[in-house]
């Protein structure tokens, strides 16, 4: 691990050491030297800073190598780039960065030659990297088919290339939490410092009281970004005002919502800012010990965080007497072991204490009595990443970032049946329609938008007619959804909404901790009911009745589980069902009464049809059918009796003429 170049002494008059920390340490990097006056030292510092800001000297090649980058083959691409450079004897440095957010167009490979702006090239993979490198390095064709845009200003010579933030995907976004993602090297402290890390921490720890810090965050209107939306400043104040010698700060990095990967991107792409956020939070509440509880499924995030923490310790940004103050703070990483419920506050406490991740009754609230019985504040990754911004720029700035009454920005993970998948950061209070159409590009070609699922398993589905709703906490709750952690999955006409409800209920049932009766038993029964209406009750009168009975019970069950469950997982378990019942009731009715799945997705309700024009009358399908649903005689057209069909598809495989097809009403009109 390289030592920090920026923090290194400019001359032997520098007094900062980890054992003898200087309170001006961070300011000095950009404005120094402060403890003595020397032009040569000032020049040294400025050169170092410029270098660090650029990301290095000479030609730089930035490759998006977060988890989604690796999923797109970045490791092999990086190896190939290295080989190419060697083969062609080109001198350039490869810098691994995180995720810029436009996952649809991964890999992004940026090239920055000396004196030129950093140019971003998209859709790179192992198959075409050579073409890009040939163009950029051999033919010097910076403008080529892969060019996406330009980072920053390059002067008149490069004005024809669009600046990244003016392109369609980015222009309506406001990058605060993700401002460094995909840009700055997340592996080294210097890059983060050059991007402004720890300036806010220095300001808070050296010039503000804990009360002032809490109130600034309170005034900014920052609300928990993990889903619950509790005012962060308020939570901090409760902990700050609880008099105990030992307090804890925990960063909740157990992002478990399927379809949510915002926190992962922040941790992999900008770990130092998260640490800075934790530092400020710990100072505000009086905690000397911090934990990052990170999912085991995020090994790269754990790796980046571990390295970042170690680097911070080395220069004294973590440890005792930080920046020459009386404040001491250090962080331990705890890895989750695969339990969605461990994203719940009290479940994290149970897990860190070494037990089963089962939530605890509140009160007492963690801010009063939490980890090991001490006052503990738990904050989401995104929440903490916003804190340095608030301290640096002020509460009003943060307030104004949001639209209307809302404050700040929110990162959403946009995925599913949409043109542009990726991470988008937008002002809180922006319309859903803007996100889905202006930024997301709308439905996939040839398909029709049906619904957007927000808030993961705790959230709900929002149909087209409500897309003018703004993405704010209260507004979404009114629609039966919730802000949640930020997962946003778009669905088109091929998605069955009943199946969506069933899918989320299965997830919740699998992840229920099992402690409290309503959630443990209620989600199981609701899942059974939902599954039963995605299947045809062949040959069983009891089951037929059961389906009807079950649906009548759904509402009551969902309501009991909501009212009586111990924790948020159970309390919101019914949301997907209730929301789809509310907006897509017709689909439920088709499933229950007509035993048809309009989108064709429910295998158990599949309708197959024999094309009589091509049918040979060979009886092969009839023999293959396990439930005797095919009627027909030799050399006469065969028919499938829908009421007896279990949807297995054996007939389709058996037919030598491929005369049997799946019938779906929606698919039929595409």
């Amino acid at each position, binding site marked *: 691990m390289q030592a920090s170049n920026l923090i290194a002494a400019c001359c032997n008059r520098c007094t900062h050491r980890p054992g003898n920390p200087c309170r001006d340490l961070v300011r000095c990097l950009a404005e120094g030297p402060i403890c003595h006056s020397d032009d040569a030292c000032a020049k040294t510092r400025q050169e170092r800073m410029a270098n660090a800001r650029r990301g290095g000297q000479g030609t730089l090649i930035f490759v998006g190598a977060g988890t989604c980058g690796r999923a797109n083959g970045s490791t092999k691409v990086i190896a190939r780039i290295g080989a190419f450079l060697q083969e062609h004897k080109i001198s350039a440095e490869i810098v691994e960065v995180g995720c810029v957010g436009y996952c649809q167009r991964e890999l992004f490979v940026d090239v920055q030659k000396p004196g030129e702006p950093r140019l971003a090239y998209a859709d790179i993979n192992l198959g075409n990297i050579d073409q890009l490198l040939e163009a950029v390095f051999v033919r010097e064709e910076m403008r080529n088919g892969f060019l996406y845009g330009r980072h920053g200003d390059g002067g008149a010579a490069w004005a024809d290339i669009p600046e990244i933030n003016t392109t369609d995907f980015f222009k309506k976004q406001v990058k605060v939490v993700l401002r460094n993602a995909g840009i700055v090297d997340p592996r080294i402290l210097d890059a983060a410092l050059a991007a402004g890390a720890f300036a806010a921490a220095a300001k808070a720890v050296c010039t503000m009281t804990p009360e002032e810090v809490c109130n600034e965050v309170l005034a900014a209107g920052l609300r928990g970004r993990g889903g619950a939306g509790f005012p962060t400043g308020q939570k901090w104040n409760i902990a700050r005002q609880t008099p105990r010698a030992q307090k804890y700060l925990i960063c909740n990095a157990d992002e478990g919502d399927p379809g949510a990967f915002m926190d992962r991107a922040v941790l992999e792409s900008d770990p130092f800012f998260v640490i800075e956020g934790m530092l400020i939070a710990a100072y505000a509440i009086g905690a000397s010990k911090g934990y990052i509880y990170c999912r085991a499924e995020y090994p790269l995030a754990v790796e980046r965080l571990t390295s970042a923490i170690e680097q911070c310790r080395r220069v004294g940004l973590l440890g005792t007497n930080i920046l020459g103050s009386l404040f001491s703070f250090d962080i331990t990483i705890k890895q989750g072991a695969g*339990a969605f419920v461990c994203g719940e506050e009290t479940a994290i406490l149970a897990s860190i204490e070494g037990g*089963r991740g*089962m939530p*605890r*009754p509140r*009160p007492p609230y963690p801010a009063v009595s939490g980890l090991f019985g001490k006052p503990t504040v738990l904050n989401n990754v995104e929440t903490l990443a916003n804190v340095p911004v608030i301290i640096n720029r002020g509460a009003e700035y943060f307030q104004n970032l949001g639209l209307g009454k809302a404050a700040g920005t929110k990162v959403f993970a946009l995925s599913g049946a949409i043109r542009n998948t990726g991470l988008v950061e937008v002002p809180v209070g922006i319309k859903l329609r803007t996100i889905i159409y202006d930024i997301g590009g709308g439905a996939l070609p040839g398909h029709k938008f049906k619904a957007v699922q927000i808030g993961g398993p705790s959230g709900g589905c929002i149909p087209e007619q409500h897309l003018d709703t703004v993405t704010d906490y209260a507004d979404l709750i009114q629609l039966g959804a919730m802000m949640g952690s930020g997962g946003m999955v778009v669905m088109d006409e091929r998605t069955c909404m009943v199946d969506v409800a069933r899918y989320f209920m299965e997830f919740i*049932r*699998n*992840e*229920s*901790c*099992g*402690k*409290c*009766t*309503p959630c*443990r*038993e*209620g*989600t*199981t*029964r609701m899942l*059974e009911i939902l599954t039963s209406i995605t299947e045809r009750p062949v040959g069983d009168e009891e089951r037929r009745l*059961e389906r009807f*009975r079950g649906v009548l*019970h759904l509402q*009551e*069950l969902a309501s*009991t589980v909501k*009212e*009586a*469950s*111990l924790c948020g997982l159970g309390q919101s378990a019914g949301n997907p069902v209730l929301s789809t019942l509310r907006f897509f009731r017709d689909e439920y009715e088709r499933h229950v009464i007509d035993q048809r799945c309009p989108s064709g997705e429910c295998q158990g309700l599949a309708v197959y049809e024999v094309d009589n024009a091509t049918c040979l009358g060979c009886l092969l399908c009839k023999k293959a059918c396990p439930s005797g649903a095919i009627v027909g005689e030799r050399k006469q057209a065969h028919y499938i009796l829908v009421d007896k069909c279990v949807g297995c598809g054996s007939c389709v495989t058996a037919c030598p003429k491929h005369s049997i097809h799946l019938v779906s009403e929606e698919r039929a009109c595409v």
Partner: protein
Amino acid sequence: MSLVNSLSIDGKEVQFTPGETVLSAASRAGIEIPHLCAMDWACKPEAACRMCLVELEGMPRLQTSCTLEAKDGQKVRTRSPRVQAVRRNIVELLIANHPGDCLTCARNQNCELAQVASELGVRERRYRGLKKNHALDLSSPALVRDPNKCILCGRCVAVCHQVQGVGAIDFIDRGIKTRVGPGFHDGINVSNCIFCGQCTRVCPTAALMEKSQVDAVVAALADPNAIVVAQIAPAVPATLMENAQASSVRSMLLRLATALKRVGFGAVFDTGFAADLTIMEEVSELIRRVQTGGPLPMFTSCSPGWIQYVEKYRPDLIPHLSTCKSPQQMAAALIKDVYPKHRDLGGKRLVCVSLMPCTAKKVEASELGDVDFVLTTREIDELLVRYGIDLNKVTELGTLDAPFSSASGAGRLFGGTGGVMEAAIRTAHKMLTGSELAGGFKVEEARGLEGIKCFSLDVGGTTLNFGIVNGLGRLKPILDPLSKGASNLHFIEVMTCPGGCIGGGGQPYDSDPEDIRVRLERLYDADRRSTLKVSHDNAEVQEIYAEMLGKPLGEISHHLLHRSYVDRRAEET
């Protein structure tokens, strides 16, 4: 007008003690809020079952009354339509995943789940679906586990870990697959379970029960080739008095003897006799150790849960255990050896049944023999019911049979914490000084329900240090100094269960701390009423020594009345 420290529950003004929960305050005021996982004593409430939800004015969400701290001016409703609807749905959910064999279930008269279902008027099984299907655990002689009847309330886990400090069972897997059991897929027999049965006592359903031997006893009683005799532990009559309106322990004991003989027992003995015998042997052993240098401290050995604990967790303490058998086993050994000489059995085999407040006694009996069957206090009820006998209506005072019919007040005290110690001190004083303990024989320092009592007494110029522990979760302060070689105690009485045997795993289901306190008082009362105060003056005991045993710790004693121990730690895989 409202009083200080009062809240309104269902319109009634209820006083509370600061720090108390609404559930507790309501209960004391006679308002029962249904609950399936809270225990009114000991462990912190987990709010898992959600049955105790109540409406609290001003809060949009329902609150669990087991965790809700009572505060001045609160307005609580415990049976509003909203609350009842939720509660009912929860019970329906539990029933949906519960076997339907209530008619043949061992707890069909006193199952808490059935009780709340009835209270809430649940008359149909609305939710149908997959039920759990776990294997029964019949592996141990003492306990039976049926995880299919478990409602996952967590009481057993809490008691095992927090009260008893053992932790033999825990929650396994997650969500709908959750079950309670010992680690891996083991039966309880190869786990660290000490068979104390506290789990069976707190279980609301038939998921955890003692292994019933009622059928076996009934079969023996019907066997023309058997003479069945009973021995009764001191704690049993002190407990049965609860419902039977007996005026004293002795009168309850004699009424029980009547009932047992009506049922067909050929003789009824008092385990208290053997308690006196145990004192003779054990105090002699203690004095020998004190005079010859150890090993000290010496621990009592009458509580089989404690013995299991030592053998499984702390075999290093085996040298410190008294080698005396428990009163149950001493009595049974003598019954089998002496009774046939005392009475002509006519060629029939002798079957010895012991009536105990304890489930671990079943394991002790299976390991040491002589006792054929052990019936817990709960099983005694069941046995009498088989024969149509209502103990409340049995008023005739029967007789106990020689040669094991009498017990001193000291022996009676064995049923509660501190009793063995007090009895021992009375006899130790006589053995060491030749004179009786002054002050009416009471050893006040040994009395009371505190978890740990330590005190010193001057016995004829020698200072002896004593320790008393009840509830194994409280062992640490006693054992830690011992591990460091820093214990100055000579003699330590350990009773596995909170309160001693009167709080045992085989005791009635709804025992709470007040019940245990009352039972202890009854034992003290029995001692007060008894004219025979000390074990060494028990005439039948003296006769046994004269005719057979010779002196305490003699060869025959060693053979009949003492035992050895096994290091069981190596037995686990």
